[in-house]
Structure formats: C-alpha cells, structure tokens
C-alpha cells in the first residue's frame, strides 16, 4: 500500500519546455508534503528597463520578452500604446494584425503539439527519433510550421521579432501575390490539420485521465472567437472590461519562483487554449468545430492535459480565420496608407490580447514627451503557475493511491507541466509596481 511510502522527485531544468523550471515533489509516509513547479529562469526586469524609452520603441523592447510569443507581445504593446496616446488604426492595419496573430498562434501551437508534447505520446525522447519512425508525421509538422512562419514573415517582415507593425501603422505591406500564395497553402494546410487530429486521436489513450475543475479566464467578444480584442471573461464570474485586469490577476511574489503567481475567485485559475475553448466554444468557426467534434471535445473540459487538444482545435480555427482575413484584405484591395503624424501626450493605456498561451496584459503610462514612466506586463504563463501547483497537489495523492512508481509519477508530472505549454522566459519578465507600496 502507498501509505508508508517516502518519495522525492526533483526534475532539474525540465526538458521540452520553453525556459528553465524544476518539478519538486516530496512525499513522506504516503503524504504529499510539497508538490511545486519551481521557476528558476534568470529574472530579466523588462518593466524596469522599458522605463525611459520612447513610445516608438516600447514594442521593439517588449516583443523581445519572448521569441515564440514575440508577435503577441508586439501587438499587445502597440494596442496599449495606442490606447494611451489616443491613436486610431485603419481596418487594413487591424486585418493585417489579425492575420499575424493567426500565423503566430499556428506557429506556437504546432511547435508545442508536435515537438514538445507528441514525443511523450509516442514514447520518444524527442522529435528527432520520430523523424525515423514516423517520417510522414514529422514532415507534416515541419510543413505546418514553415507555413506559420511564412505568414509571420510575409506580414511582419521577419518570423521572429518582425518590425513592420508600429504604433498606428504598418511600415510595409505584403504583395497581392504573396497573400494569394499563402492562401493556397492555408487551404492545403486544413488537410494537414485533419491528419493532425487523426494522429493525436490515435495516441490519445496516452493522455492521463485526470480532471480538476478550476476557473477559466480568457477574452470573450460578441463577434468572434476572441484573439485580438474582447472583454475579460471568467467561467466563475462572467465578463468584465480589460481595464479591470488587476482585479482579475492579483499578482504576488512567491519564493519558489522568479515568476509571479496570480489568483482570482479561487486559489488559482487557468488561461490558454483550453480556457479559450471552454469559454468560447460557441464562437469556433467551421474548421474549429469540425476538429472539436472529431476529438469529442465538448466544453467545459476539466482535464488540463487536454490543453494540447484545444491547441489543435485552435490551429484549425486560425487557419480558416486566416483564409477569411486574406479574402477580406484582397477583397477591399491593399492600399498604401500614409504614415500617421503622432503627437505624444501624457496618459495611461491598458491592452490585452489572447496570445498562444493565454490572456496577456500590458499597461503603460507615458509622460508628455511620449516617454514611458511606468510599465506592467502580466503574462499568461504566470497566471497558470498556481494552477499547475494545485493540479499537482490533487493529482499526486491519486497517483499514490493507484500505486504508481516514481518513474510513472515523474513522467505524468512532466507531461502535466508541458501540457500547459509554459513559456518560462516570458514569465520572469514583469513586475508589479504596487508591490512597492
């Protein structure tokens, strides 16, 4: 029986996640004394060093919080600056930004599902041996990733840290032929995504059977499956405007993590693809719904491991959304628009976007000269850390009851952390000014 069991698990620098984190579990006499995910990434202090910078530079700096989430930070940053300075954007600019978000979401989800999660489901150490055992799967993954990067590059000038999106403007437009060729590839990609659904379904029995209901927080809008814009929506308390984000997030510093933790109506909440699909399932487009149906996904789903499944559903959704966005851009005709003449003024702006890992908030205050005097960023991964700890604390005793050995428990916990797709680089880059008070 498990009641007399002692066990100590310490996974140092967990592999196949973005950034540095350790899993630490201590069990004494069959009782879990500690089950935590320690974030040991070096702190980077972005909010401190964005102070004193000009509004034209803020997005250049904050997009470098994370290479994978770069377009998400970039667009959130621009929306925040535009809200502070009262800058309007044109419909064309908004459509191009939405297309960029589609590409960035596909990029990040494909990387996560195929390169970081799939090896566990196939019982491999990485995608490298899979290249020999399942070459078609790996080639399909590379094809999808390549398309996603090309969307970002064609819209934003570079796949990572693109430069075309600036406050109030897009410095250079894609060409009609570039967009047409992307569209053709995206139509083909829908078939690759059908195959992706089948591939993951075939190994879905390897996904641990663990459910824990929690609070799910995401954007929600009345028009669409909210990525670019919307209100904050909690599965516990409903909708609230983005300006109230501090009441939703309640960041605090904890000793075992250079990333801050958050909570709202319970001790923890979840953000990301599963939270979005749980809150916005009714807003999925046809391709998204088809994928959800194929998986038998019906909101609400309380198994955190299903975050990866929700990501595949979203891949189908964003590819169809991207095709429709290109049709709108081509339908109205691409037009060179004049560079806006922006006059700096003092003010505070708050911006929020759904980025691959969940809801992201930026909050800047500018002075009369358009120089940042205060900044705050709350990153999706931080918002998930407390939820990961709560999952572990509930799941580990169940594993002990089932008499799982140390290897099996360790693997299940590694898979749990990976399922959240933590972006640890992102998570250690903020600060909350209110802690000084």
């Amino acid at each position, binding site marked *: 029986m498990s009641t007399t069991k002692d066990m100590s698990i310490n996974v140092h620098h967990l592999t*196949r996640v973005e950034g540095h984190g350790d899993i630490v579990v201590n069990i004494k006499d069959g009782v879990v004394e500690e089950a935590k995910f320690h974030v040991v990434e070096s*702190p*980077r*202090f972005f909010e401190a060093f964005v*102070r004193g910078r000009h509004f034209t530079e803020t997005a250049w700096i904050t997009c470098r919080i*994370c290479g994978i989430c770069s377009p998400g930070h970039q667009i959130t940053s621009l929306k925040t600056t535009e809200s502070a300075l009262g800058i309007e954007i044109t419909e064309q600019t908004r459509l191009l930004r939405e297309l960029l978000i589609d590409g960035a979401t596909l990029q990040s989800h494909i990387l996560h599902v195929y390169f*970081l999660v799939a090896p566990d489901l196939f019982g491999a150490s990485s995608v*490298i041996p899979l290249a020999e055992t399942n070459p078609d799967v790996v080639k399909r993954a590379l094809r999808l990733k390549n398309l996603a990067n090309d969307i970002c590059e064609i819209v934003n000038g570079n796949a990572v840290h693109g430069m075309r999106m600036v406050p109030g403007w897009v410095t250079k437009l894609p060409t009609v032929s570039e967009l047409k060729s992307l569209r053709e590839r995206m139509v083909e990609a829908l078939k690759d995504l059908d195959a992706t659904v089948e591939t993951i379904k075939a190994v879905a029995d390897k996904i641990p059977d663990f459910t824990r209901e929690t609070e799910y927080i995401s954007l929600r809008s009345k028009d669409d499956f909210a990525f670019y814009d919307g209100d904050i929506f909690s599965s516990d308390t409903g909708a609230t405007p983005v300006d109230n984000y501090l009441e939703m997030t309640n960041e605090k510093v904890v000793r075992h993590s250079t990333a801050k933790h958050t909570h709202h109506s319970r001790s923890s909440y979840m953000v990301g693809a599963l939270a979005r699909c749980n809150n916005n399932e009714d807003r999925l487009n046809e391709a998204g719904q088809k994928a959800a149906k194929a998986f038998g996904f019906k909101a609400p789903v309380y198994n955190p491991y299903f975050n990866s499944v929700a990501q595949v559903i979203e891949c189908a959704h964003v590819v169809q959304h991207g095709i429709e966005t290109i049709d709108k851009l081509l339908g109205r005709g691409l037009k060179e628009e004049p560079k806006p003449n922006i006059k700096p003024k003092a003010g505070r702006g708050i911006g929020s976007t759904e980025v691959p890992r969940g809801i992201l908030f930026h909050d800047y205050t500018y002075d009369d000269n358009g120089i940042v005097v205060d900044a705050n960023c709350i990153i999706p991964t931080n918002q998930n850390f407390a939820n990961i700890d709560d999952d572990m604390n509930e799941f580990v005793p169940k594993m002990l009851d089932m008499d799982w050995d140390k290897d099996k428990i360790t693997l299940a916990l590694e898979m749990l952390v990976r399922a959240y797709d933590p972006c640890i680089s992102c998570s250690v880059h*903020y600060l909350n000014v209110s802690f000084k008070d």
Partner: protein
Amino acid sequence: MKPKVAFFDFTGCEGCQLQKLNCENELLDILQHVEIVNFREATSVRRDDYDIAFVEGSISTPKDVNRIQEIRKNAKILVTLGACASTGGLNKLKNFQPLNEVREYVYGDKAGYFDTLPVMAVDEVVRVDYKIHGCPMDKKDFMNILKALVMGSKPYTPDFPVCVECKRKGNVCRYELGEICLGPITRAGCDARCPSNNVGCTGCRGLAENPNVKEATEVMEKYGLKRDDILRRYRLFYGYWQEVTR
C-alpha cells in the same frame, strides 16, 4: 564520425533557438550530419560529451557564470547565437539603471529572493570561438556557420556596415525621411532587413569594425535629429560598448 552538438540557453527570449527550429527545410538534413546530445528545449536526452556548444542568452546570475564555465570546459568549439549571447544585446538596458532599484521595481520588498548580476555577454566570462550576431539571429547565418564547422573550415562573419547592403538594395536613405538609422555603424549580414521594411536600423548586430560613431552622430544631427534620441537608440543594442552609450 558525426560531430556531437549541444545547445544551451541562458538569459534571453529563446528566439534564436526558435530560428534554428525555423530551418524547417534543412532540419532533417542537418540531423544526417550531426548528433544532437543536449538540447533542453527539444529533447529529454542530455549528455556532456559534445564537440560544439551553441550558446544563446546573456550571463546574468552567479549560477549562469558557473554553468557557462562548465560548458566551456566540455566544448571544443563554443559559438554564441544572437545578440544576447554575443554582445549582451537588449538585456544590457538593465545595466543603465541601479541594480537594486531594478530589482525592487520588479519584485518589491521580495527583491532579495533572487540573485542577479549586471548583464554580461558570454565572452565577458569565457573564451568564445565564433559569434552569430543579430536579434534574432538569421537562419542563414546559423546554417552557414554549422556547415563551415561540420566541413572543418572557418566561418565568415561580415564586419562592414549595414549601409553597404542597404545601398546595394537601392533603398531610400532613412535620413532623407527624417528618421534615426544606425546603418552606417552597425555590422551587416542581415541584408539591411529593417531599412528594406521601411524601419531605420536598430543596431541589433552590434557595431561594425572601426565604426565612426562621432561622424554618424553628427550626420544625424545635421538631418535635424536630436542627440538625446540618437543616444537612446544607441543604448538599445550597443549597451556593451561604453564609449558610445555612457
């Protein structure tokens, strides 16, 4: 025998690691010619018997210092990937503010929980054999250096300024449009990517060889740009070069 290759990341955004994975068309071929023995982001295999270590990110904590010294001991060749590792990059912005103040601003009265040092490029701590510049690094630079190392030849890094590539592309000079551009003093190799996208060079590859910073500053001032704004732009990615930025 295939050379054994390892990838390590320190303080940074992992965008350069991503650029590597973005070589979708070449990845499967690369695996024919090297053996990857350590790449935390992509595989759970971890060994320390590598020939070539690729290092991303800056050195910014006491633990980082120990870890990079270990890697240097194990590796025959050490290559830095991207601005954070090669010059300290954007992370060096932190060094312009007092360290304690930065920590308190971010972590409040819990600042003492977390160690941090002034940000250093990798070559401020250990010897570096080759550097790939840029934020992010360019896929093409990575492929070139990898090919050269596998073939046993010496990789080539341009040392002339971005202006050379920009002129070749026939771009209108950003100065004529009243914008700051660091093309005259920044190391080339990006094919003038930012100016070609109608954005002035931000200097992400660091300084070119023998940059005439004084002259570049004066030229920008002649075009009506303000010294404070120019200096602020220098600090974005030239934080490692004190004469320019302090």
